[in-house]
Each structure stands twice: as structure tokens, then as C-alpha cells.
């Protein structure tokens, strides 16, 4: 239906997922979305770091196509937003949002906590999305939509993700950007970094 979705947070058997990469890629092809694995096993993968202390983050950081940071405390979140060009999975506040905008970080809008859940868990997930959306808009933080799929049944088609994002309160442009342009920019930046074409921030070799 003319819509594109690049899902950057898909987990295969190589990490915490249940299906193999081949199965996931085949199913993604069926529903019409593009996926990238967040297993942290290869150069073409994203890498996820869940951490509570500053030292943990420093120890685990390694070159990868893109990095997803999930801070477990407020101090950890303050640390996470200082790492440039990362994807952050946290509850935003004005301080974090401003730092994220300055460091070109993106905030993850994951659909996984909404799919197949009910009651308090889903209500909290919706609350988190509303809060993050509010601060992301105010401070100009880019939003990244992901499914967070751990099996092929967690993947969704671009059109369905778009309609869900619209229901969650994103505008047409915000939804399209969260699904396509933001993830593509992240991947492109990662590829340029890997190829050594970005020697430092804001300097790109052509």
C-alpha cells in the first residue's frame, strides 16, 4: 500500500528471540516490512545494551551499525543520552530530551509492550509513549518506531504499524518518518561510520 517500514529492533535465536533469522526474514517479506536484527552478532546488526551503571555502559560499548541503549536508572539515562547517534529506550524528561536532541539520539517507540498485552501493563506502555511523544515534539527528538519482535508473529506490516501509530497520536508525517526516514538515517550513519567516511561529527568524506 505504498508505505515502507524499516524495523530496527528484531531479535532472532542468536540473542533473545525464538525464531531463526531465515524465518524472520521470510515472514517480514510476507508482511512487506524490512528488518534489521538487534542481536549484536554481526557487523550488519544493531547492538543492545541494558545497563544500570556508567561503568557497565563503557565496558559494553562496541562498534556496531547502531546501538540501542536501555538505561535502568535515572543516572544511567543521563549517561546514555551523552552517547551520540544512539537509540534510547527510556522515559523522557525535559533534561534528557534536550540532551538527546543535541546528540542526535532517537527515542524508541516500541510496539512490543502493546501487542498481546492487557490491563495495567498496556496502560503503562501507553503512558510512556504519550510522555515520550510530548517531549520528543517539544525538543525535536526523532522518533523511531519498532516492533521489538522476538518471533515472526511479533512482526507487523507497514500499513498496520502506520495505522497504529496514528491511533497512538502521531501525525501522518511523524508516523511516516518514525517508520522509514529515521531508521534509514540511523542505518546510513552506521554504514558511513563503518566505512570510515565520517571521520568526526559533522565531517563526511564524499
Amino acid at each position, binding site marked *: 500500500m505504498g508505505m515502507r517500514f524499516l524495523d530496527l529492533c528484531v531479535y532472532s535465536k542468536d540473542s533473545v528471540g525464538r525464531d531463526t533469522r531465515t524465518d524472520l526474514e521470510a*515472514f517480514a517479506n510476507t508482511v512487506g516490512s524490512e528488518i534489521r536484527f538487534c542481536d549484536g552478532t554481526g557487523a550488519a546488526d544493531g547492538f543492545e545494551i541494558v545497563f544500570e551503571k556508567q561503568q557497565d555502559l563503557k565496558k559494553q560499548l562496541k562498534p556496531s551499525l547502531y546501538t540501542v541503549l536501555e538505561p535502568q536508572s535515572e543516572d544511567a539515562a543521563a549517561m546514555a543520552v551523552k552517547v551520540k547517534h544512539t537509540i534510547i529506550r527510556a522515559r523522557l524528561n525535559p533534561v534528557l530530551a534536550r540532551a538527546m536532541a543535541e546528540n542526535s539520539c532517537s527515542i524508541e517507540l516500541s510496539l512490543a509492550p502493546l*501487542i498481546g498485552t492487557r490491563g495495567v501493563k498496556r496502560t503503562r506502555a501507553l503512558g510512556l509513549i504519550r510522555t515520550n511523544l510530548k517531549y520528543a515534539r517539544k525538543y525535536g527528538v526523532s522518533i523511531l518506531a519498532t516492533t521489538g519482535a522476538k518471533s515472526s508473529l511479533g512482526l507487523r506490516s507497514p500499513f498496520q504499524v502506520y495505522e497504529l501509530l496514528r491511533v497512538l497520536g502521531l501525525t501522518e508525517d511523524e508516523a511516516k518518518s518514525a517508520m522509514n526516514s529515521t531508521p534509514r538515517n540511523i542505518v546510513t550513519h552506521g554504514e558511513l561510520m563503518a566505512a570510515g567516511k565520517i571521520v568526526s561529527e559533522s565531517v563526511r568524506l564524499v
Partner: protein
Amino acid sequence: MSIAPTLRPNKRYIAFIVHTDGPLKTREAVDTILGEATAFFGENLSSRFGLWLTEFDEEKKQGILSCNREHKGETIAALTLIGAVGTTPASFQVLGISGTIKALKRKFLKDGSNMSAL
């Protein structure tokens, strides 16, 4: 007394396929869709969607869901949020949307579906 055609609510027909292991009864599909719409949007709002499972093929796990045109987005969002049928993991994939069942079948259910009208 019937309602004049111009005053009738406009419908949209949504073709979908259910990805799940094991068989799926029509009743289970209906309960899952209505249950999800009610759980997410509430009884009041979901009652305005005009949801109706028009046809369902238990073998192919394909179906046609009708809804009011104004609530097409919410209906698709409800289908997107379904993660299980009963306790079995499942996902509902929207194949396409149309204003008539005929066009829907022509565009999205080409392979001679065996769907029975409910």
C-alpha cells in the same frame, strides 16, 4: 422502513489473514477481534466501529471484516494489537481494504478463496 442509501453508513471491507499454529474456528476469530477492540478502545467507542466478520475461511484462516469508514484506522489498529487467539500466539495481517466485497476479493483474495458468508 429502510434508510435511504445516502444516509446509510459507509462501510469498508478489510481482508485479513491469521498467522497461527493449529486450527482456528470462526467463533474464536470473532471473539478475538471484538475482545481486542473492546479492551483497547473501550465498550463505548468500539461499539461505533460497526465491526462484523462478513466471511471467514477456517481452512485458509482468511476473512473479511467490515467496519464503518470513519473507524477504519481504529479497526486496523485493533487487528494489529492482537497477539494471541486464546492462549495460542497469533498475528492478524491486513491484506487490503476496499469499499466493496467484490473489489476486495478481486484485488486481495485472488486465489479463489473458499470463504463462507456468516
